[in-house]
């Protein structure tokens, strides 16, 4: 079953302002695929943690379903003409779930902690350029920057790492397990590895919301088990179901599959530091050698859109640059040109937590074998994978970037010379200049041609070989209403209700 029916219903309700059909109360039993790795918004980087925090902590501004910036804790915001300061006016009368009233001083304390190097936050970079945070009065917050950061608003809106919580939890350490936010739900029980219980925040600032009394989050790591738990009714809502099961679940009446094109992409990251792979022609040969249709079919069972550049068609920034096709002859010719007519040996490093990357790697391996590149697969578990990637200890890896909105998100951190997430070692001064310039420009029309050039250069020089844009897929019982899969992969239960 697909979601369209309910979406239309929700829209209809919104237009007519009717609320009669929505019933309050009830507990949604939801299954997460991974356990939240700590809940301190500044420390954790796990998606599973943020997907919980999404419902507990509000950001100053947020994104609507169409990915436009809209008010949240701040009802208005102004960016100075020179881009060196941003002023937020906070909504009045907002309370944390413990009853404390939110003031601008809370915002200052939280942001200062995020930026403090002692905190060791992996998210401080999102507020790059911010030098001071001030609270001239109880409802005003001013961020001062030493250089403009055009991604700042996007990060403030999309990342819960930049959300606001009651700083009382910092001293007593409860921030790790029970951060206190202003969001629709509050964490009332956190049992690592098994369960997170979210209960309705009695002080939530939006009247009448949330509808649900509670969200009971269970951790079910095994996708097969998650699927059967959903089918057998043990859970109401599943974070993701195995992509191979989507078709079968779609055909069922008792499960609803909800999809959205995600601001995400899967790619082969190539270590450009040395050896054959340092040669652009070899990387292009790989791009020609692989059969993206087969990769997407094997990895996602059709729940993906093959692509050669990163930004998905659903975005206004989509370029659709497609210089490659599946052409083993061309690949062999390029290899010969680069002096590797007899091929060479290399390694593909998928991570075993993401089964789809392991499946993709197998198709890539077979495709490369056909052009003479002898690739071996080394699937690592997440911790080890991160270490090896961080140390540059790989030839190629298969991974994804998720939750991307602004084109800057798609290119800057990944490809700008010397950036921490530039794991491929790619460096192109022209691209650097374009990246620096494009992120400062305010207007879409002015930025687009620059990003188009950047896109072209990256695709041509192939430090990343793009594979496909995935779909964000959730599956749930048909009586779960008012939920929708989102392009930014956020999971929000604020308007969810149960029709039972």
């Amino acid at each position, binding site marked *: 079953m697909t979601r369209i029916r309910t979406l239309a219903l929700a829209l209809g309700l919104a237009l007519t302002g009717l609320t009669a059909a929505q019933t309050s109360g009830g507990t949604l039993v939801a299954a997460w695929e991974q356990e939240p790795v700590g809940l301190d918004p500044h420390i954790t980087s796990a998606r599973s943690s943020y997907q919980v925090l999404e419902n507990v902590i509000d950001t100053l501004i947020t994104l609507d379903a169409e990915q436009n910036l809209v008010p949240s804790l701040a009802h208005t915001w102004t960016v100075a003409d020179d881009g060196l300061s941003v002023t937020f006016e906070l909504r009045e009368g907002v309370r944390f779930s413990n009853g404390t009233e939110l003031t601008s001083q809370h915002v200052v304390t939280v942001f200062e902690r995020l930026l403090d190097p002692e905190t*060791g936050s992996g998210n401080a970079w999102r507020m790059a350029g911010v030098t001071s945070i001030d609270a001239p009065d109880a409802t005003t917050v001013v961020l001062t920057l030493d250089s403009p950061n055009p991604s700042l608003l996007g990060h403030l809106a999309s990342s819960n790492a930049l959300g606001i919580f009651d700083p009382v939890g910092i001293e007593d350490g409860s921030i790790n397990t029970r951060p206190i936010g202003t969001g629709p739900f509050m964490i009332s029980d956190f049992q690592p590895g098994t369960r997170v219980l979210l209960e309705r925040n009695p002080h939530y600032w939006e009247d009448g919301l949330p509808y649900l009394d509670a969200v009971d989050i269970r951790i079910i790591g095994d996708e097969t088990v998650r699927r059967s738990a959903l089918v057998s009714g043990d859970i109401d809502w599943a974070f993701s179901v195995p992509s191979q099961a989507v078709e079968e679940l779609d055909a069922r009446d008792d499960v609803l599959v909800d999809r959205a094109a995600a601001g995400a992409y899967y790619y082969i990251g190539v270590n450009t530091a040395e050896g054959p792979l340092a040669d652009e022609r070899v990387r292009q040969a790989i791009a020609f050698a692989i059969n993206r249709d087969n990769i997407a079919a094997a990895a996602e069972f059709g729940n993906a859109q093959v692509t050669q550049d990163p930004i998905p068609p659903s975005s206004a920034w989509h370029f659709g640059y497609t210089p490659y096709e599946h052409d083993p002859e061309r690949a062999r010719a390029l290899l010969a040109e680069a002096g590797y007519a007899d091929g060479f040996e290399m390694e593909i490093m998928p991570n075993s937590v993401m089964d789809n990357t392991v499946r993709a790697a197998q198709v890539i391996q077979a495709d490369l074998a056909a052009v003479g590149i002898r690739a071996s697969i080394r699937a690592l578990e997440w911790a080890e994978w991160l270490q090896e990637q961080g140390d540059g200890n790989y030839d190629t890896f298969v991974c994804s970037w998720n939750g991307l909105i602004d084109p800057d998100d798609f290119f800057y951190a990944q490809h700008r010379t010397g950036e921490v997430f530039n794991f491929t070692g790619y460096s192109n001064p022209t691209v650097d200049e374009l990246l620096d310039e494009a992120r400062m420009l305010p207007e879409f029309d002015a930025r687009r041609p620059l990003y188009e050039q950047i896109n072209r250069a990256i695709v041509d020089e192939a430090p990343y070989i793009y594979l496909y844009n995935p779909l964000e897929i959730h599956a749930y019982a048909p009586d779960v209403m008012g939920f929708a899969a989102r392009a930014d992969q956020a999971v929000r239960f604020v308007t969810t209700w149960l029709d039972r």
Partner: protein
Amino acid sequence: MSLAYLLRRLGTLLLVLFGVSLVTFAIIPLLPGSPARVTLGVQATPAAVATLERQMGLDRPLPVQYVSWIGGILTRGDFGTSLISRQPIRGEVTRRLPATITLALVALAIGLAIAIPAGYVSALKPGSARDLGVSVMSQLGVSVPDFWMGILLILLFSETLGWLPSSGYRPLSDGFVPWGRHVLLPAATVGIISGSIMARFVRSALLEVLGQDYVRTAHAKGLPRRIVLRKHVMRNAAISIVTIVGLQMATLLSAVVVVEIIFAWPGLGQLALTATLQRDYPALQAAVLLAAVTFTVVNLLTDLSYTFLDPRVSYT
């Protein structure tokens, strides 16, 4: 059983446990990957990793880390703080322990419920079709991979028939029925396998007692084999069965680890695997240490009960 023997066994036990704690501790810093990096994720900068490692106390010399770790456990029952969830591990372990114990005990009960009747039936008439049936079942039990068994049971009872939930744990305080429904499949996975294996041991234990003089005498008195088995043999074979149960603990504990993972059962086995994957050193240490301690103590008790129950066996 002499006191000296008991003391010697206890001394050895402590020595082994000390070794276990050393091994548990020593192997862990050898693991590649850093918990700080896992916590910080893809976006970890080297500086952030270093800061976090310092906060986690991972920059201290290993002996210092060991002493503070073992000292905490022995003096305060403090297993340290999870590097990932940043909660005291003691709470986590206390929360998970009942789940694992439940699973192990119900599995053992199912196992015995299979093994004793099956062993009895086959010892009743060795060489009969039923005996052969039990042997075949027993051989299959040893040969079936436990993870495969679990999946097949989920497929049949949970998905196809829809009778039982496929995952999760309910404490007994939630009521007997929800508790039972959740524990049945994982416990059956372990129980069927270990029951099949134990059936063979029960059979040979019974046959051994049957071969003894007083049983032969009972036979000679004209008592039917069934009565002899029930009256004399079962009671005497109880000793061997205690031993079998003790020896099965190894297989059982190992199977429980696997089954916990497949059935999303929030026990110590699952804790150990996630902790390994996340490099949550203290949590892994706690889980492994507890498992090893349980196992070692059960082994000792098995040996001691053997001496205790059967005065003919004496240790010096």
